[in-house]
């Protein structure tokens, strides 16, 4: 048709666009990760990758599996709800290989004040002391047994 003859350049342009779109779709097919869209608009494999990250804290049940003697003492004291690693730090490596990875000996002078140093913002019924007045700088385990710290008449239980 006569009018189309003079619009030939527009058809060429359209062809360039279509070719570009086709190329994009093909390249896209190669580049989009396989698991994308598996559960939603994201890479399904990401979930597995995140779940496979290494664990640093073993969790108190693991500790209690071996250290039954400590559990015995602790479960009768006021620290019964305090997890082992709350004071002893992350010990999953120790739990995996107890002989080769030893937990660090803790310095109670620095450890206990993290929770028990007096502060107006702490709940009133929470046991807290002004450590300088209370012990004059002496380490807390001089008088208190950390696993069962409450003092009764005649010394710590």
């Amino acid at each position, binding site marked *: 048709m006569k009018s189309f003859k003079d*619009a030939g*350049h527009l058809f060429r342009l359209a062809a360039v666009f279509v070719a570009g779109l086709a190329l994009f779709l093909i390249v896209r097919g190669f580049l*989009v990760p396989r698991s994308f869209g598996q559960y939603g*608009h994201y890479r399904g494999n990401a979930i597995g990758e995140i779940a496979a990250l290494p664990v640093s804290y073993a969790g108190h049940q693991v500790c209690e599996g071996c250290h039954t003697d400590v559990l015995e003492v602790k479960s009768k004291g006021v620290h019964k709800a305090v997890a082992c690693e709350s004071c002893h730090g992350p010990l999953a490596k120790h739990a995996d290989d107890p002989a080769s990875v030893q937990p660090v000996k803790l310095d109670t002078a620095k450890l206990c004040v993290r929770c028990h140093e007096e502060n107006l913002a702490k709940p009133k019924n929470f046991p807290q002391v002004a450590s300088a007045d209370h012990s004059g700088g002496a380490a807390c385990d001089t008088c208190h047994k950390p696993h069962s710290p409450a003092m009764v008449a005649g010394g710590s239980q």
Partner: protein
Amino acid sequence: MQIPVEGFMYPNEVELQWSVLIVLYPFLTGLVAGAFILASLERVFQVEAVKPTYRLALLTALAFLIVAPLPLQLHLGHPERSYEMYLTPHGSSAMAMFGFVYLWYLLAVLVLEIWLDYRHDIVVMSQSTTGWRQLVYRALTLGSSNISERSLHIDERAGWLITVIGIPSAFLLHGYVGFIFGSVKANPWWSSPLMPVVFLFSAMVSGIAVVMLLYMLMCRLRGETIDMRCVDTIAKYLFYTFIIDFSLEMLDLVHRIYEADESFRSLDFMVHSRLYFSHIVVQILMGTVVPIGLLALTQVVKLTEVQRKRTYVVAGCLTMIGIFAMRWNVVIGGQLFSKSFLGYTTYKMGFVAREGLLTAIILTILPFFILWALVKLLPPWPERHSVAISAAASGD
């Protein structure tokens, strides 16, 4: 690097996320939208007077649009993954959808319109030039050398249609950038339905101003007389658009002050302290009130040609600074205050750094180099065009 904090900020908020490059980006796309709308004034609304700037406006838009993604790429933590936005765009993300708006505008509007308008010249130059230049022009012809009356008429009609589609596309281009900010409910400085509209009108203001300035500059460089009818008309449109833009910004301000919601006291303090210079002095006074005043003067008082030219240059330059300051105040200002409304942080802008001031300066200058190259390749003005052809024919 210790960042000074006043009051309380959530710990992760202290360091700013979006830098001066993200200020530059809406500034550049704004110039694109504004320049295009000025061009479309002639094409669609038959404003004859601005015809001398038509092709220049299109090339300016293209130069800035090419540079626009660069600040984004430099800002990304992983620019090598940026293609993911086109592969797996998240439908609910304004940023992802903007990738397509940008692409649409670049390819289906701007490039197409430039090609259709220049096609006759491209075909002529593909036959009259030699060497690598000829290869470029021949590629641009897409193999068709048809420049008959009828084909040019078809180009004219197609170009008109593209401009008609292009106007809402230009609105979408920059309105979307405004929406990227305006839709963030977590940030009360940004979250507003007015944001896309304010961004768009300030874009138009900056785009019109830049084309006006470039036209006057290029006439000077070429030794041509400035078409005052053209420049007077552009200045008039700049004035009207500025009034609308200023009204919108004042509306936002008055609304905030009146409603005084939970964020107001924090934001108010921020504007009066950390943002005082950039917001009150640079954006509002120097960048809006003074240019509007100067332009109003030219409309009301009869000034000589020389006086008008000087006024337009001053008003145009102040406008550009003011609109940049507006982007700064939105982007940086929106990150200076805490979402707890209890504190403020500081923006530590590096100089020679990936997201530093030097980078921003280079990216601002770069479009002008690209424009220079485009003007060489696709001359906007007839006299220059015939000069180029005769120069090329003699084996330039």
